[in-house]
Structures are given as C-alpha cells and as structure tokens.
C-alpha cells in the first residue's frame, strides 16, 4: 500500500489545515510564505492524485475505515462510512481547478499588502480551495452538501471583502440568500433519497436506483440547485454582480468553483441517475439551459461598460458551451450508436472546454484585476491607451481574448470545433447558436481591447505603470497553460480529456468501484 | 393523550412561524422565531432525538436570537431618522 492512496483525504485536509493555522500568522512575510507553500503543496497533491488515477484507475478511499478500500463491511450490502471516490473526471477537474487557483493565489499575494487583516483573506481563500476540491473528490451526498456550504460561505466573505464598497455588500447579500435557499433544497433532495434508499453513498444509490416520482423530484432539486450555483441562464442574475465586485484573484477562483458545481451536476446526471432515467427530457433540459446561457450571456455582455461585469457575462455564456456539450453526451447515453456518432465527441468538447475556460477566463479576470490595480477603475469609458504602459498585461489580454473568442490557433477553437460539429449532427440550430455566440464573444472582446488598450493615451492615466512581478507571474502561469494547451491538443485530448469522458459515461465502473462486482 | 400534545405542539410551531412572518414589528417577529425554535426543540425531544433537541435549544433558540437582536439594534440607530426601521409593507 503506497502512501498515495491517502491523496483524496490529503488534498482536502491540507488546505483546511492551512486555513486553520493561517490565523496565527501575524507577520506579513511569514503569512505570504505560508500562503504560497500551501497553495503549491495542494497543487502538487492534486497533480499526484491525477497521475495515480490515470495509472491505477478509479481511486476509492474509505474515511476512517479499517482499511482504505474496505467499502463494504462484512455482511453489509450498503457502505456505511463516508467514501471518497475519484475517477478520471474528478481528478481532471481537481487538477484544472488547482492550477487556476495557484495562479489566482500568486496574483493575490501583492493584493494582501493593501488590506489590514490579510490572514483572514488567506484563511477564506484556503477554505474555498478546500471546499472546491472536496466537491470534486467526494462520493457521498451529504458530504457534498457540506462542501457546497463551505465553498458558498467562504465565497460570501470573499465577494464582500471590499466592505467599504456598497455594491460588493449588495452582490454578496443577493448571492447569499439565493445560495442558502438553494443549498436547503439540495438538502431536501438528499433527505428524499435517504428516505427511499436508506443510504447516502452515490454509488450505492445508483446501484439500487428505480426511478419513480420521488427520485425525479430529487433530481429536479439537484439539477436546479447546482445549475444556480454554476450560473446557468434563468438563474444567473447573481453572477455578474458577484464576479464583478469580488477582488480580481477571487473572481478567477470563483470561476473554477462554479465549475465544481457543474461537476456535481454532471456526476449526478451521469453516474447516479444515468441510464436508469429513461427518456430524453433531462438531456434536453440541460441542452436548453446551455443554449439560453450561451446566447443571453453573450448578448448581455456586448452592452456592458464595466470590464469585469462584461467578463462575468462571458463566464455565463462559456458555461453554456459546457452544458450543451455534456448535455449532448447525455442525450446519446442510451444508444451506443449515437454515442459513437456524436455523443462522445460532444463530451470531449465539453470537458475540454472546462479546462480551457478555467484558464482563459481566469486570465481575463486577472488582467482586469491588474487594470484595476494600476488605474483604480475597470470602467471602460475611463480607460484608454494602456498598451504602451502595460505591455505584459496587454499581451496576456490579447492571448486570453483570442483564446476565448475561439480564434484558430488557440485552444478555445479546438473545444468549440468539437462542439460545433457534434451539435450539427443533432440539429443545425444548436451549431448556429454556438457559432453566433462565438462571433459575439469576439466582438465584445474587440470592444474591450479597443477601448481599454488602444487609442490615444489619456491625461489622467499618465502615471500608470506595469503591475508588480508577482502579479505578472500569476498571469504568466495561466498564459503558459493556454499556449501549451493550444500547441498540443492531441496529447491533451488523449491523456486528459478522453479518460475523463470515458469514466463519466461508464456508470457501471463507477458503481463497481464501491459496490464490488455484484452488479 | 400524548398524541394530542404532539399535535398541539406541531400546530403551535406552524402558528409561531406564521407570526414570525406576519408581525410588522421586527422585534416581535424575532421573538416569535425564538418561540418557534423552542417548540421545534420540544418536538425533537418527542421524536426521540435529545441530542438535536439540546443543540436546537442552545443554538437555534439562544444564540440565533441573540445575533438577530444585535442586528436589529444596529439597524435601528438614529442616523437615518424615520427610515428603514419598521418599514415593512406587505406586498
């Protein structure tokens, strides 16, 4: 037994320990060191976990059990302890999330000099990190709820961190009420499943699943609550407020936290319900949510004047791509022919889009943050001519904007291409909406680039200088990731995306990892 | 006999929850919420869950009420006279 089997527990408990100790770090230098150490350590742990899963297959870990893989104690047909279950999809999400978190953490180090109580920020940041990773490794419904609450409560505090700005408090309050309500209906769904099946483990419930009225009701509650947390369109109203008002490093982080909720939604739709849920209704609901998110998100983004608010609307529209890609996979789940025809391609596109979005959307928020750091505003009407003064930021922004718009040599195009072609098979309308969205995305980023970086330099921005080195390093991490993702799409598709998509589709192996071969 | 007491407690829970929403005076509403919490803790005891009953009585009825009253006191300051205090039109 190698020590690496403990990785699912370590990857959550190390940031938690970091958060608990960080309130004792009163010296700023020591605190910054601690911040960077724990961030790097957790990212390395997430990478090791991904590698372990890639080599050895699905990793199951029993919390507090007699042995780490003793899922069923003798004579029981149900698991009784909390079980962490990491398959290739979860490990992939954890890896992508931790890289984006590392970048936003490095970016935020200099930000900490400006606030009085930096170690509270550090503690909240680590807690949000732990919550996000916990969502991605857990295999237990109630534990999922607990991590959802950790992530939401930490993000309320982080969004309102500039407490002297009324808008920040307002955004945080709206998010808090919506999110608390949604977490409660998620808990009601968990209670319903517990009442019917007498267990809380996802795989055990999936094995015994007989879809009736109650199961459908629980499914509705799960889907709606997680769609709201990830910001799909009819429920997206909080997202531009929250992402626009949070500190920039936190906005970059909140993107990957939203994707963790998306992960939970796909996990429930594929691994818990899967083929037991007959009919295409669920798949079409997810696809329609995706279409609405794509279109309305981008069309609202075109008219925005605040850079971060505009990027937040783009975040909604990119979420739409993922929803549509994986929804198409869900549509093809019941027939293997459809799966090989378009479903698997669409899922590859959707999953590839998750890591792409984490990288370029994070980078865009970071550039907006450095604009704010340098000039004190993100209002595009008050900016202009910054290209000469902030060359690194301009370069990063150009790369990220090209990637998000899906300009060809960049990674955004690869995932979008996969989605276009597979959605065209189902119905041309889907592909048309996706393409129009892509064009409008390009248009709105041209607007940002033109009014923010190009044009004559303004008089009130004469003293602007490039941001400090640590911020540039934070942005550089994501920029390098974007360029390498664009340069070797083949390797990424073969080693990162395809195992994830295969594990997500394969419900039987998910169940078997916990319940043994009794399927 | 036990059943009647049980039903009476459940009914009182609903009534106090209703009053917590219905009262225009916020202090009355908070006290009503506190009463609801206490009754729910009693209900937990009837449903054979003393652990939860203690937690609900301590946290739900005690501390939650305390922080609600603190928030009320903060929002009733005289900085903006006549604004915000009991302004609670029913939709």
């Amino acid at each position, binding site marked *: 037994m190698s020590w690496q089997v403990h990785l699912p527990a370590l990857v959550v408990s190390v940031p938690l320990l970091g958060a608990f100790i960080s309130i004792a770090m009163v010296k700023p230098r020591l605190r910054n060191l601690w911040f960077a150490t724990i961030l790097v350590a957790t990212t390395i742990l997430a990478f090791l976990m991904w590698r372990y899963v890639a080599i050895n297959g699905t990793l199951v870990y029993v919390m507090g059990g007699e042995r780490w893989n003793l899922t069923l104690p003798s004579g029981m047909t149900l698991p009784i302890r909390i079980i962490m279950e990491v398959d290739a999809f979860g490990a992939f999400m954890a890896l992508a999330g931790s890289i984006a978190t590392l970048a936003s953490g490095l970016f935020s180090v200099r930000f900490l000099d400006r606030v009085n109580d930096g170690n509270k920020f550090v503690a909240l940041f680590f807690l949000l990190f732990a919550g996000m990773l916990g969502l991605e490794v857990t295999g237990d419904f109630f534990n999922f709820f607990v991590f959802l609450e950790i992530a939401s409560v930490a993000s309320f505090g982080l969004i309102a961190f500039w407490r002297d700005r009324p808008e920040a408090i307002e955004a945080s309050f709206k998010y808090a009420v919506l999110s608390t309500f949604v977490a*409660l209906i998620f808990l009601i769904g968990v209670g319903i499943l517990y009442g019917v099946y007498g267990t809380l483990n996802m795989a055990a419930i999936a094995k015994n699943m007989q879809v009736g009225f109650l199961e459908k009701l629980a499914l509705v509650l799960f889907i709606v609550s997680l769609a709201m947390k990830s910001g799909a369109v009819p429920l997206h109203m909080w997202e531009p407020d929250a992402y626009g008002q949070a500190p920039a490093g936190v906005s970059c982080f909140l993107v990957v936290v939203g994707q963790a909720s998306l992960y939970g939604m796909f996990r429930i739709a594929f691994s818990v319900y899967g083929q037991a849920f007959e009919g295409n209704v669920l798949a079409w609901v997810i696809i329609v949510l995706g279409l609405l998110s794509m279109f309305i998100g981008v069309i609202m983004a075109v008219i925005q004047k605040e850079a971060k608010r505009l990027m937040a609307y783009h975040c909604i529209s990119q979420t739409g791509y993922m929803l549509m890609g994986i929804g198409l996979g869900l549509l093809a789940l019941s027939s293997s022919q459809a799966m090989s025809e378009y479903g698997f391609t669409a899922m590859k596109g959707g999953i590839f889009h998750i890591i792409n979005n984490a990288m370029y959307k994070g980078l865009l928020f970071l550039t907006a943050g450095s604009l704010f750091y340098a000039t004190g505003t993100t209002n595009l009407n008050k900016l202009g001519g910054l290209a000469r003064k902030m060359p690194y930021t301009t370069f990063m922004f150009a790369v990220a904007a090209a990637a998000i718009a899906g300009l060809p040599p960049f990674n955004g195009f690869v995932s979008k291409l996969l989605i276009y072609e597979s959605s065209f098979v189902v119905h041309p309308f889907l592909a048309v909406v996706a393409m129009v969205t892509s064009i409008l995305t390009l248009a709105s980023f041209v607007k940002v680039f033109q009014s923010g970086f190009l044009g004559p330099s303004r008089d009130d921005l004469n003293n602007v200088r490039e941001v400090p080195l640590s911020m540039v390093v934070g942005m550089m991490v994501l920029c390098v990731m974007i360029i390498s993702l664009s340069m070797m799409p083949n390797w990424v598709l073969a080693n990162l995306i395809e195992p994830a998509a295969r594990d997500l589709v394969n419900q039987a192996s998910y169940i078997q990892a916990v319940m043994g071969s009794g399927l | 006999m036990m059943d009647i007491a049980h039903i009476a407690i459940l009914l009182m829970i609903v009534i106090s929850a209703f009053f917590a929403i219905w009262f225009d005076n*916020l202090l009355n509403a908070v006290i009503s919420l506190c009463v609801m919490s206490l009754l729910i803790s009693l209900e937990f005891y009837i449903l054979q*869950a003393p652990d939860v009953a203690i937690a609900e009585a301590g946290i739900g009825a005690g501390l939650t009420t305390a922080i609600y009253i603190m928030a009320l006191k903060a929002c009733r300051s005289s900085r903006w006279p006549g604004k915000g205090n009991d302004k609670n039109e029913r939709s």
Partner: protein
Amino acid sequence: MINNIPMLTVGALFVIGLYGVLFKRNIIKIAIAVSIIESSTNLFLIVLGYRTGGSIPVYTLAGEFKKMVLPTPQALTLTAIVIGLATTALLLTLIMLLYKHYGTLDVHEIRRLRG
C-alpha cells in the same frame, strides 16, 4: 393515530418561509424566512428517521434493547443546525453593512447593480 401530520408541518413551514422570502420587502424578514426554511429541513430530516415505539439512540438511557429510532438523520441534523447558524450570522452581518451603506432595509431600494 397521527397520520403524517409532522410531515405536513414540514410542508407548512416550507410554504411560510418561501412565501416570506418571495413577497416580503424587509431584508431582516427575508433572513427570518430563510431561518424558517432551515428549521423545516431540520424537522424533515428528524421526522424521516423516526420509528414508532423506538427509543433514544443512547445506550445509557435506552430502556429497551435494539429498538431505537434511526440515528443517522440525527447526526445529519446536528450538522445542518450548525451550518444554519453560520449562514444566518453571515446574512445578518451583510444586512448590518447594507444598512450602514444604504440606510434602508427595503429590498426594492437595494438595487444599484442591475442591467
């Protein structure tokens, strides 16, 4: 016989709370309504685990052996209560700051972010 009246109470509490969140204008009222929904979920979980004639799941106090109410929902509810306190405290903190900045508790006037 009290046929599922506790479950109806859960439903009634949920309705009252959701009504308050939707149609009340005072933000402290909204926080109270969220607290009521929290109480209803707690009650729901406990009612889910009740077994007629069961005893307290504590051996020190159990009179009769091995006929106890289900203990897992109680553990879950314990967790949910503390989480509820945490979110309530944070909501009230945000409300206090909102009042400091906006000078009002009316939810219709707290709308600087729109469009």
